[in-house]
């Protein structure tokens, strides 16, 4: 078993997303540790991109702030190594194709592996294009996490069959960001996924409240929360670790209830 699949064995998993370098890398480090201590089972480290086309306004703004602060891929790799020495929580990079492509796929995957990173999510690389990144990811043992959406249709089965690490189930249409309600009926999609893989599934996009987490947790093996955490970081700045810790604790409790 890998660190990543182990994360889903202790009941419904809570996956926390943070944008690295917002407001600075030291705060990011403390936020990640606070999330892990308060029940986050996996932490997604967002490497900011200038033009994040799958993100809503909250994470877009965080990306812009982080880049304006001078954060780079290099410095985020260093942060990941540092975190790996301080916490056993699985760390997954989430960024855009060009960040990895420009750094060099091989070099990125090898450095990620050396830093102890457990997976990579690239939201603008669908199943049909994964060959650009998958060989290097495989070479260095860093699973390339696949996304599957309510619109995936017949492709969902193929995506699930070849998935690695865990499956990132997109809850509904649209970009990332908090939603008042998630109306999509995910049961048919979940059924297709379950028929085609034994890997754990985590639902993300739009989840922010304990009620939503509990509801989504009933369908899947875990939930992913991004914008709500990034918004807390925006609101509390350097004091965000305590606020994020409290939030993660409440969400995890709702999942386990």
């Amino acid at each position, binding site marked *: 078993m890998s660190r990543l699949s182990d994360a889903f064995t202790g009941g419904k998993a809570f996956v926390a997303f943070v944008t690295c370098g917002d407001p600075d890398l030291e705060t990011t480090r403390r936020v990640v540790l606070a999330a892990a201590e308060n029940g986050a089972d996996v932490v997604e480290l967002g490497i900011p991109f200038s033009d994040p*086309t*799958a993100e809503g306004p909250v994470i877009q703004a965080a990306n812009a702030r982080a880049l304006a602060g001078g954060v780079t891929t290099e410095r985020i790799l260093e942060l990941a190594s540092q975190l790996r020495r301080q916490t056993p929580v699985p760390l997954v990079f989430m960024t855009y194709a*060009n960040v990895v*492509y420009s750094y060099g796929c091989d070099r990125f995957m090898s450095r990620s592996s050396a830093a102890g990173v457990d997976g990579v999510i690239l*939201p603008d690389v669908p199943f049909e294009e994964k060959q*650009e990144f998958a060989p290097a990811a495989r070479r260095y043992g860093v699973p390339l996490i696949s996304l599957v*959406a309510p*619109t995936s*249709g017949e492709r969902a089965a193929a995506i699930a069959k070849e998935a690695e690490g865990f499956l990132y189930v997109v809850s509904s*249409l649209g970009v990332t960001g908090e939603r008042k309600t998630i109306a999509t009926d995910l049961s048919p999609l979940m059924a297709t996924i379950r028929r085609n893989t034994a890997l754990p599934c985590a639902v993300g996009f739009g989840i922010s409240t304990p009620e939503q987490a509990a509801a989504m947790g009933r369908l899947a093996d875990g939930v992913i929360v991004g914008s709500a955490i990034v918004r807390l970081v925006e609101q509390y700045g350097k004091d965000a670790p305590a606020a994020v810790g409290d939030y993660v604790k409440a969400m995890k409790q709702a999942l386990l209830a």
Partner: protein
Amino acid sequence: MQPEKGRFGSHGGQFIPETLMNAVQQLEAAYESYKNDPAFVRELTELLQNYAGRPSPLYFAERLTRRLGGAKIYLKREDLNHTGSHKINNVLGQALLAKKMGKTRLIAETGAGQHGVATATAAAYMGMECVVFMGEVDARRQALNVYRMKLLGATVVPVTTGTATLKDAVSEAMREWTRRIDDTHYCLGSVMGPHPFPMMVRDFQAVISAEIREQALAAEGRLPDVVLACVGGGSNAMGSFYHFIEEPSVRLIGCEAAGRGIDAPETAATVNTGRPGIFHGMKSYFCQDEFGQIAPVYSISAGLDYPGVGPEHAYLHDIGRAEYVPVTDDEAVEAFELLSRVEGIIPAIESAHAVAYALRLAPTLPPENVMVVTLSGRGDKDCAAIARYRGEDIDE
């Protein structure tokens, strides 16, 4: 030409969020089934003729030719199309296709506003809802086109993120498409984005080179020696080049917006200053920093102010079939003014980049050479901005 589906050499592809994949595949299937459907082709051809005013003239610019004393210069007058640019060729094709697919709503990005105006026009004509995303900076410098779009019944959404220009408008249109797929078609304005857009938009624009070919044969009894067009995403250039790609005697030259020069940070000359990358659905050349962050590009021309280039242009560059040359703001403005005075034709500032290179190249070529410069659009929209550039403030 295309060994792998949707690829041009190593460029192209479909690098988009999973949520959009199904929509893009449906579009691809619909396009493949309609593009050779005689009824669809007939309907589109009639629209292009009766509504858009095709064919556009291939005009012999005799005064300009005499003044430069070199190659014979012909202007392909896409500026005379309905809505004032080549954009209508692609938009009528896509809007008709969207309608056949049962879509009731068109969304689009726009830089200079030409594609937005064309999309708003097609939507009005076909009774569809229309929303156009436009960078706030562009909306300010192309205020006339914003008003035209509103007049045509479209909603114009100013985009304030990033550099508030064309790339941000594309990102926002893509985000909107992921929010609303069922009834909405994203009418992309250039030969860029995920497959099938680069191929489909090229096909709809290829009417330009089909006509140039016929018109040059009629006027000169032979094919042109040089074809010049400006390149942002590259749709008017791809349309102007397409039917000459297999004719090695025809030199194909794309004119990129160099802004303040290719050695300055304020440039948008992607092929000249960018490197390979993956962005906005495609692998191609992009202006970017060492960590792959997309560069905040600059050009006086809102329509060429884009950090990438269509994947087929990247491929034509790689194999050496087309040349891509940088043209600065200063050169483009001088060409804008010169063509107005010498030929009585006010070109769009985008098209003026191609005219500017023609001014440089024509005198170096023998008089028996035939050069075609595509005037992608007309310049009424640019008059206020050019006046400002010259230090004169006028009311639009």
